[in-house]
């Protein structure tokens, strides 16, 4: 074709575009949809009355009613969490018994009989093996309980109703109702919560859900909260009410986390995420009996094992680092001691101490090993006569013994409160950070998600420490 002809055609098409008007494209799309609907109406026969059978509608009326909707919701989610925390205790201690108290000494003696040099044996068994074993023992049972239960609820069709009930609250902070689900999932594991944000199809709301998931107190942090609350907060009230008060303290921290989630969601949607496209829709699928075994199987494979594997991959080098910093000496002090001394001043300003800050740095891979690391480092710098030696994480069987070690490390009630706050408000674990990167595919958002909570944690603990010191 001659160039001239092509130009003519383009000219003509431009002219035609001009004549048919702006709404043409919209009208065309809409009429295609309408035509399709007409064809369906003529050719597909369905029994309307049967489609939403009565039981479905009845359940919906109850779970979304003003009077029962919210109590039912809190009851169900509370039960799931309680079952997880309580139910995980037994298998966790069983696993700890096996991996930490039986296999670990066996490995040590095996290594000794092979004549392994102390540094290799320490590095591999006390460092890498112990960290991995710890993560498995603490992480596997709650996840193996939480995820199947959650997936069953999802499969049954109840969770979309939770999103439906709560959307108005999330809407106020610029988020999506389904964030209620990713948040609840975060109580199990933040990495899984971040993955769960896929259910939110609006780009802005999905990013908000990903960036704020860390404010859900995850399984790795519940034990820390409960231990510290029992030792320090339970101790300031009469014995009869101490367990209730420490429980309330832990719940308070979790609720505070939700408050931060709402606040930060609001802030993000008003500032950095303002320009992202935002749409809303929420389908309420019909209820169906959950496919029990299939659900259990897929939730174990898809959620539990994948997350656990990632955690192990990250925990192994962390164990190595923990062992190395406690055993490599510069001058006459170990690296750990140098770092602790260096950070003590800043830690004190935040109402924490150098040990805690160092523990949170080396335990980025897994929140589960924070307490063992803190105990080990405290013993390292104070020289209290418990523990297994430099670089070997440990936990004590009795809460009183743990309390003694921590008090020897200079802990006060303020330290305990601020540790609980900092445990809530600090960077996500490396598994979560990696997952955020995978899900957002953006270095920028990964950095935001990692750094923002730490800064918040510094600010909150700093303010609490100053007020505390002014008042007491």
């Amino acid at each position, binding site marked *: 074709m001659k160039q001239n002809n092509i130009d003519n055609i383009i000219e003509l098409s*431009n002219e035609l*575009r*001009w004549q048919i*008007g*702006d*709404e043409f*494209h*919209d009208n065309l*799309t*809409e*009429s295609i*949809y*309408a035509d399709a*609907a*007409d064809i369906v109406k003529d050719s597909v026969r*369905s029994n*309307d009355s049967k*489609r*939403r059978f009565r039981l479905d509608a009845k359940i*919906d*009326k109850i779970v*979304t*009613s*003003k009077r029962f*909707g*919210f109590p039912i919701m809190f009851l169900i989610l509370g039960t799931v969490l309680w079952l997880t925390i309580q139910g995980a205790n037994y298998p966790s201690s069983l696993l700890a018994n096996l991996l930490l108290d039986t296999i670990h000494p066996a490995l040590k003696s095996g290594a000794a009989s092979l004549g392994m040099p102390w540094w290799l044996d320490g590095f591999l068994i006390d460092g890498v093996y112990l960290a991995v074993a710890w993560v498995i023992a603490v992480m596997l049972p709650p996840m193996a309980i939480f995820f199947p239960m959650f997936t069953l609820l999802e499969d049954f069709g109840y969770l979309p109703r939770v999103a*439906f*009930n*709560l*959307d*108005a*609250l999330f*809407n106020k902070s610029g988020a999506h*109702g389904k964030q209620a689900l990713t948040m609840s999932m975060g109580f199990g594991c933040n990495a899984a919560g971040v993955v769960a944000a896929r259910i939110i199809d609006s780009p*802005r709301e999905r990013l908000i859900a990903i960036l704020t998931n860390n404010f859900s107190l995850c399984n790795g942090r519940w034990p820390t909260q409960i231990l510290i609350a029992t030792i320090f907060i339970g101790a300031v009230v009469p014995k009869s009410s101490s367990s209730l008060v420490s429980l309330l303290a832990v719940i308070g921290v979790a609720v505070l986390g939700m408050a931060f989630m709402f606040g930060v969601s609001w802030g993000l949607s*008003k*500032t950095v995420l*303002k*320009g*992202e*496209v*935002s*749409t*809303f*829709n*929420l*389908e*309420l*699928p019909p209820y169906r009996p959950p496919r029990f075994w299939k659900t259990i199987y897929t939730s174990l494979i898809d959620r539990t094992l994948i997350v656990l594997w990632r955690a192990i991959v990250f925990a192994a080098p962390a164990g190595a680092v923990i062992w190395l910093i406690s055993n490599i000496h510069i001058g006459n002090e170990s690296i750990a001691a140098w770092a602790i001394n260096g950070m003590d*001043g800043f830690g*004190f*300003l935040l109402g924490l101490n150098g040990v805690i800050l160092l523990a949170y740095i080396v335990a980025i891979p897994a929140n589960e090993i924070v307490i063992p690391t803190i105990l080990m480092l405290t013993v390292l710098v104070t020289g209290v006569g418990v523990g297994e030696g430099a670089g070997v994480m440990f936990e004590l069987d009795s809460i009183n013994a743990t309390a003694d070690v921590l008090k020897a490390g*200079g802990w006060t009630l303020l330290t305990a409160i601020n540790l609980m706050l900092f445990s809530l408000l600090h960077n996500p674990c490396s598994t979560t950070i990696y997952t955020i990167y995978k899900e957002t595919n953006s270095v920028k958002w990964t950095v935001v998600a990692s750094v923002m909570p730490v800064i918040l944690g510094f600010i909150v603990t*700093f*303010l609490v*420490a*100053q*007020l505390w*010191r*002014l008042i007491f």
Partner: protein
Amino acid sequence: MYTYNPISALLVFFVAGGLLYFLFRPAKGWYWVLKNQFISNEKTIIEDVLKQLYHFENSNNKVDMKTLVHMLSFSNKRIVDAINKMTVNDLIYFESDILKLTEKGREYALRIVRVHRLWERYLADKTGFHKIEWHDRAESMEHRLNHDEVEELSMHLGHPKFDPHGDPIPTKTGKMAQVKGVELPLLQVGAVGRITHIEDEPEVIYKQILAENIHMGSLIKVVENNSTRIVFLSEGEEFKLAPIVAANLTVAPLEKEVAVEDNVARLSSLNEHETAKIIGISRESRGESRRRLLDLGFVKGANVSIDLVNPLGEPNAYLIKGTSIALRNDQAAKILIKKD
């Protein structure tokens, strides 16, 4: 162990925090203000002057130096410098003390207007920015895009004819569609028409119109028109506006006496146990959200009813094509229905 005064620590913290806030708070932070000052060079001033002149000439107003300086937020000296340069470059000329655009200046001004409106269209269709922000963002963007980028943008958007407020977008060659219609206060009581344009300046009035939830492209019927207020019906709701606000709405009277559907309403006004048929989706719903609604089956002719009422007021779940879909009220307000 460590001794320091908590009060001084707190003081340092709050001073630092306050400083950061004033530096970086959105829009008014000193950092952004300084940055804008730095960016706004001579080109910006020239283009802003051209645009102002263009708008004034289009509305048959005359502009002298004084009004112009008053309209623009640059220093007098910079404006005078820019105007001198523009006269030399044959973009404008003086007729006694009235400023006028030359042919070349008019062309340039049209290009700026084109970028501005295209960018507003882009913000409306492809981003999540609120309507209130479109204008200001387009104001700064119009100085930044070069010719090729503008063409690419236009193609990306499907060569739209109108911006989201209903203002025509000039084509590459300077051609421009006509906005049909007259200002709302000029309509008689009983007249029926379609809103074809919502003026976004001045901002105070525009905000008022937005607060009323008036939508582009909706049919209206005037029921009262006097010097104190104008009342009209649209999509099942009644709107009352002061004449000065109403003057910012352009309405095209319907030429043929089409049968105006009397009981057209917004989906958000549907009550429990009522059923309705969908008439269409308002043009106010754009881009991704509009497509999503169509995908979900909110198309012309579909039957809809309320499936579940939300305990917190919104979103309600609507039963459409056998599926229960929850929509927030602001979305439901953009779906037009006819109640059975």
